[in-house]
């Protein structure tokens, strides 16, 4: 069993938080986040497109490459799968330890975490190993998400090291540029930062799971604002596990406990709730990772139903017939033989 020593070191802080909520003098004051005012962006129209279960055991993170192909990590299977949009499995890379977080950059370079070694490996588009972030093994306590800055000029990579309560930022040379966060409940502090996404505007959204809030930073890690609520009244976030956004800047938050995806404007005004807990197409059991592709399709992994749920947003592009897709043209439902092409 993997352990996370840093969790023990943080114990007293959570007690302090509860004490604070009870209003006992002397306790630290939790950051109160603004839920945002009137929505600044339109509510997305959402349509369920597909519910794909083939060859997925317990999918976690999902990413898309420049060709629109879909990468899905499957940590308990120790594998990542490359799929086409209709669910056909193009390739599987197995024997990868515990691959959780994954991101693909504009050049189809791949960033993949391995929880069993505490590293993030970098691969080129041909799955050639191209190094590791930082010092390699042991660089991270527990990576749960990776985001690539859409600004090709910065080419920064943001890594949510939830075990260390940090977001670590890496440059094109794979070396650490800066980190921000730290354990706590105050502005800019984290308690299990489980998800990270960088908007086109360069704002860094971090899902601060145990503080039940989304915090927003600039690229330098300067705290800008936050939204969400913790404890007490209506629990707006059950368990933030994934973050993504669309080109308009709307923020999609996967709530692993509530079993849905909530959509906000960048300031926290809630726009719509997608899905719900269940087994029908478009429903989730522990939604985890999510991404929006260039066809304006929202792809969400559902860990405990072992599925990839696909939604169309607004003027989305329909999923082409399987025989027009790249890859081997497998229909959804077919299961590709899992290769053992360990890099």
């Amino acid at each position: 069993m993997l352990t996370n020593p840093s969790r023990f070191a943080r114990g007293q802080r959570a007690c302090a938080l509860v004490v604070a909520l009870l209003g006992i003098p002397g306790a630290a004051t939790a950051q109160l986040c603004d839920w945002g005012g009137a929505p600044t962006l339109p509510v997305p129209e959402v349509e369920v497109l597909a519910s794909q279960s083939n060859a997925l055991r317990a999918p976690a993170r999902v990413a898309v490459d420049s060709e629109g192909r879909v990468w899905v990590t499957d940590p308990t299977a120790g594998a990542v799968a490359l799929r086409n949009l209709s669910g056909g499995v193009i390739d599987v890379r197995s024997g990868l330890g515990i691959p959780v977080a994954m991101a693909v950059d504009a050049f189809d370079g791949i960033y993949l975490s391995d929880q069993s070694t505490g590293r993030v490996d970098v691969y080129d588009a041909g799955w050639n190993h191209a190094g590791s972030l930082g010092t390699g093994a042991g660089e991270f306590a527990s990576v749960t998400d990776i985001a690539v800055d859409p600004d090709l000029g910065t080419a920064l990579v943001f890594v949510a090291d939830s075990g260390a309560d940090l977001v670590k930022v890496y440059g094109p040379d794979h070396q650490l540029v800066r980190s921000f966060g730290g354990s706590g409940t105050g502005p800019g502090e984290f308690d299990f930062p489980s998800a990270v996404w960088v908007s086109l505007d360069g704002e860094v959204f971090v899902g601060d799971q145990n503080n039940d809030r989304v915090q927003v930073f600039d690229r330098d890690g300067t705290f800008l604002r936050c939204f969400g609520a913790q404890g007490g009244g209506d629990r707006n976030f059950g368990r933030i596990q994934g973050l993504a956004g669309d080109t308009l800047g709307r923020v999609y938050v996967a709530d692993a406990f509530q079993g849905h995806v909530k959509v906000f404007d960048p300031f926290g005004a809630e726009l719509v709730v997608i899905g719900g807990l269940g087994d029908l197409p478009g429903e989730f059991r522990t939604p985890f990772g999510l991404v929006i592709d260039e066809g304006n399709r929202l792809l969400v992994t559902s860990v405990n139903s072992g599925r990839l749920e696909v939604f169309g947003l607004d003027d989305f592009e329909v999923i082409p017939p399987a025989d027009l897709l790249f890859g081997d043209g497998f229909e959804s439902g077919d299961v590709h033989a899992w290769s053992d092409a360990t890099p």
Partner: protein
Amino acid sequence: MRGPMQLRSFRPDVIGTSFLAVALLLLMAPGAVALDPAHDASWSIDCSSCHTTHNSSGGALTTVGGNGNLCLSCHMVGSLASGLPFVDADQALPGPGLPLGTIPSGTSHRWDSGPAGHVKAEAGNTSPGEVIPGGVFNGRFPKTITLTVTASGDVGAAVFSWSDTIGGGGSGLTTGVDVPLGDGMTASFVDADTSPSFVAGDGWQVFVRTDLLPPADPALSARLEDGRTMCSTCHNQHNQSRAPFDPSAPAYGGSGTGEGRHFMRIDNDQGTMCNDCHGLRVVQSSSEGSHPIEVVVPGSGGTQPPATLPLDPNDRIACMTCHQVHDSPAMDGSLLRSADRTGLCVECHTLADTATPASHFDPGSTGALWPGGQYGSTFPAITDSSQTASCANCHQAHGWPDSSDPNVDYPRLQVDLEENLCYTCHDGSPADADVRTDFLKSSAHPLDLASEVHQIGEPATVTARHVECEDCHGPHEALPRVDLPGATTAPRPASGPLEGVRGVNLAGNEVNPASYEYELCFRCHADSPNLPAAPTPRQFPESNLRLEFNGSLASYHPVAMEGTNSSVPSLINGWDETSLMSCTTCHNNDDGPVAGGSGANGPHGSDLPNLLERRYVTADGTNFAEANFAMCFKCHSWASIESGASFDDHKKHISGEDTPCNVCHDPHASASPKLINFDTSVVSPSNSGTLSYVSTGTNSGSCTLNCHGKNHQNWTY
């Protein structure tokens, strides 16, 4: 949309009450609702991590979509309890009883099942309604029930049919509450907000398993979801005080201690919690249809205390001696502590020697996979090749119902009655040898006269004559067949398929294991009572083979020791006067490889009388043909005999008078030399009242008898 205004709109009295409740919970005396590690601040967990004071989506202020969902939202890779992850696909889906093509899977006890099984909607369903299985399954065979909507509608209007994997079913049934499905099972249909709740063509599978009861302990029974277990049924997520079945677990030292004690809901160090639902399997003898538990493993008689498997505090076996509730290394839903089933069994059962494995335990050569019952048993085929050669092919630890009376299980936790169990493989497929065909022959060891009579450890000298496969073959010791040369200089060993069987030696004493093949035969063909009459009435009658072959008589075929006749000029094919033979030199399959056939070796059956390998005519007056005595001519040359090399009138008697060998010679032994032991139905005393043969030297002798109407008075040769 929710915003600050909504938060402020909550009723102040409710907020106040709830905050007070939380405060009280936190300030109460330790142990009441204490949070023990690791569900405490050491992992950044507090009440609010799981509880919501207002507008909770479910019961106990926690649940959305079931208790499991709450637990899994942390206990998954990439979430807070990343080091102890569970996913739905981990839940056990053990065979048998699964739909065709469904592979047994799972490493964890289910957290969504119970005596009414668990339900899974089929992929592609669009029905928003819910199906909830109910009742207590009391069937004897595990199975999967498939419910299919045949007419769309809401509850009361929608119609469904069902079928199961063992041939049951029903159709034209109206959806409703507690609709009977047989075997104590029901199905309830729950409408959704949208209509129709149930869409034609949609299906649900209900997986039910045997020997389950609802828990009786109130701490457990109070925590069920639609009668099904959940994480919190077995685990008290707040408290570590209860004792787990884990010898390495730390002691509980009061509130705030006990990490690693598995948060048990009630004590389970002696298996109490397991037994509450699985009580029908709490037996102390396998004769009750399940592997015994709550017993100390004897250190003798084929068992030994386990070296690594955990026992309860009283050194007794419990469910969790063999089973691992979560993270089982076996991937097939059996939740065993080892993927190596045989390795697990041999911790206690010394019968299965895996260091020098018997055929049945050797996955590399002769081990087989159970191909599915064919001669009575319904136990389905095992298709997981990793189970090749495992104990589970013949034994199921929790028994399998006898198809002729499903109220009882097959004995010894077998999956079929012997000999049907053996026949299932040894009928030509998957084992090459088809011994079943041999046992159907006109002369065969009569397996069909006895069923389940043989007992492990029964006396070597059989007191009630019977024969079953295990009387001659130890299924846990037998090795592959070894082809031995016909002529040997030592008795044929009880090796190969006879490895490990007990026998009776020449002195009449039990030997365990037998050293020689004949010792095995002596179990039933020597000192045991009720021996059958010899097929030929003899001058010197003797049915006890041990007394015939132990060297006490004047002559005998050399089975146990060298023969007494130093001049046997007819011997051929490598045989000479010093050679030894075996019982199976003559008593063997007439279609076996030694006889030039394609059948199995061994004295299982023959279409020739007296289970002989070759023709051996005994009826006097049968027209002579060499083929009629092929048994004799396997080792003895007709040319030599015909030439009179040993007895100058041999030809005259055999081919001249059509007198079979058997009239003068006893093929086993005789008080006279040279195996002369007259068939008294043909040969009678001489006119002087004497019946005798006297050897007067090498290749010479004298007969006094009456035969074919001719008086022989000291006729010499």
